[in-house]
């Protein structure tokens, strides 16, 4: 049996982590893969940590990705990406948004936010692509396009053509918000281009 592909997407409640992973799953399902997706969400609605596990392949049994077994880590927030770096298979790539969102326990001085989480990731020696997804989303006038930008950015790291993921994003908006379809396509492409420019 072919090895399954394991993708871990992390961030915090409200960033669209679960939706992005869902779209990624839809792309894998469209290709006929078996897939399982799960969250260790807990009370994520209240600003907590969200981490979505997606596994796809010929047949998926256990839904969770174990430490050292993620083939790709996608982080929507810089410190969260660092938090989950130990999940990576040695040599597997990381894609992270550089935005920093600090919780009240940091604001009230109980804990510190790392000075340079992206630098720490780089120091770990992982193949890293880091960029400001907010900046790109705002170029299209809507901060909520951030997760489509992230999907575009991860689309060349998948074991299937980027266009399949692009179609999955497109299908979702065609069905739910047709008026947002075009801008999401463009946001996806912009994310993809940005990530490609960072390679090497």
């Amino acid at each position: 049996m072919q090895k399954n592909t394991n993708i871990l997407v992390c961030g915090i409640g409200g960033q669209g982590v679960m939706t992005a992973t869902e779209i990624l799953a839809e792309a894998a399902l469209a290709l006929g893969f078996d897939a399982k997706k799960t969250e260790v969400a807990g009370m994520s609605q209240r600003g907590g940590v969200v981490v979505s596990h997606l596994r796809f392949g010929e047949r998926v049994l256990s839904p969770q990705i174990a430490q050292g077994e993620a083939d790709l880590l996608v982080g929507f927030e810089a410190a969260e990406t660092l938090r989950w770096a130990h999940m990576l298979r040695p040599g597997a790539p990381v894609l992270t948004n550089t935005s920093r969102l600090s919780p009240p326990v940091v604001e009230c001085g109980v804990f510190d936010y790392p000075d340079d989480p992206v630098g720490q990731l780089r120091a770990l020696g992982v193949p890293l692509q880091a960029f400001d997804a907010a900046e790109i989303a705002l170029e299209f006038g809507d901060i909520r396009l951030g997760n489509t930008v992230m999907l575009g950015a991860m689309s060349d790291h998948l074991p299937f053509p980027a266009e399949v993921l692009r179609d999955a994003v497109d299908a979702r908006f065609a069905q739910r918000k047709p008026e947002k379809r075009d801008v999401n396509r463009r946001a996806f492409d912009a994310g993809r281009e940005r990530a490609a420019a960072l390679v090497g």
Partner: protein
Amino acid sequence: MGNALTAAAANRLFLSGNDAVAHAARDAGVRVAAAYPGTPSTEILEVLARFPGLYAEWSPNEKVALEVALGASMMGARAFSAMKHVGLNVASDALMTMTVTGVEGGLVIAVADDVGMSSSQNEQDSRFWGRFAHVPVLEPADSQEAYDMTRAAFRLSEQFRVPVILRLTTRICHVKGRVELSPAETHEPTGFIKDPRRWVMVPGNAKPRLPLMFEREAALRTEASASPLNRIESGPDRRIGFVTSGPAYMHVREAFPDAPVLKLGMSYPLPLDLVRELAAGVETLLVVEETEPLVEAELKAAGIACVGKDVLPRLGELAPEVLRRGVARLRGEAPPEVDALPAQQVFPRPPTMCVACPHLGIYYTLSQLKNIIISGDIGCYTLGAGHPWNALDTCISMGASMGMALGMDKARGEVDKNKKIVAVIGDSTFMHMGMQGLLDITYNGGNVTVLLLDNRAVGMTGGQDNPATGRDIHGAEAPRVDFPRMCEALGVKKERIRVVDPYQLPVLFKTLREETKIDEPSVIITDRPCVLIDDYKKTPPYAVIDDACTGCGNCLEVGCPAIHVTRRDKAIKPSGKEVDLAFVRIETSACTGCGLCVQPCAPKAIVHAAPVVPVRFMSRN
């Protein structure tokens, strides 16, 4: 659209376990479904309520929900109830006698164990109820099985006239997988048949039914051996044979693909002959179950040698790597090495209250009061135990805040003589199990002040409706409980019932001071809606005038996640004391203008903001 996705979506569903159970209940022809929201089970009824042609309700608590389902079953209709693990504790009084009467229409109880405790006050194993109540327990291993076993559970329920427990766990409820549906059935209610010897459980009627219950259990034991839900999967590596159920099955198959496995879909009653058959062909039998060693204990009691919790953890979720470590231990080998980066130290990100949450003002006020014991309850407001408020002293079970407060009051000795005792409870928890606690306080004259936080939603589970919201499960208008009148009817003096706006800190503070001073039961009701529901209306946001901020940090004590520290410093006061300064800004794109932080700001540095473009990637709200 014309791409491959549309066609694929049409013939294949990608469902969570909760979704799958809901689809199965619909397809099984369920007529009545009732639940109280609780993580990780909540979505089951939310999904069921969207299907036409069946009755679905949010009940005030799980016991009522199960009784509603039983009533429907008595009418000969298929009935369903869903709850989280602690919910079945509440419903157990009904369960323990419903098992004596048995059911008429198929009745399935989906109970979701929060294994790993992502959102619960304890971790408990609902499979115990199967043993305790002599009813079968089915344990799906993924979404497809959640669908198929729910369908099977209804057939089993009617075949044996027994309520059936469908035991789910977080890792069933909140995992999405592919599901293929089976053809739907329809079931017309067969009608209520008056039969006091069956339905009126007075001792004279119940006694003759007990032997029938045990006969039924024996028949179910035979069924467990014959049922396709239980199967032995052969494998060439005969060193260890696994006995497993629920999501643990997937972990076993993943970690040990060549091992023989007894897969228990119906894990109670146990098919002992299948276990013996597996045991005969392997060197060691290893029982893999989340969480308690129930199967293991029963096998040992039956004289079947096996290993289980001596090498596997009794707490939390299992996973393939956990099993690999356990098996290495069993074989006396070194634990398998994991080739991975070490975990990085990153600050915790505990759940917090929302921007503008009406509870913020309450906990700010409570945190400023001295000599107070705050008996807490279960809901978003339990977060008041955390930073920066540290203003909640207990949390045990639904509705417990008031009974405990009364007990504290009655037990207080010299050391606590001057303490004020306050109970904090939300609207839905009050409806669930709180009313009786307040009744006890009034009936027995407790010196307790109750803070009833009416935010018109079951906030923690996502803002579901309840009898205090004025809407039913479909969002349609429903009678809304009148809390002041209800409290009065429960015996609180009219003048001791105060309704206040939780965004008005001075009023809140004054009211709390007054009511805690008076030596009799009092209730302070707050009346602002949860910010996550439609009733909440945003108002213009605020911003900080940088030059005016003195860094006092008072606003940070409100605990709103929209307030951020821009710079820290230290200052020496005229008294010579060194103080920490924290200069702040407000994330104006997230602020909804509740005005709580404006009130403790002495230099009046917080003012209405000019319209701004959000600058951060996907900040909340």
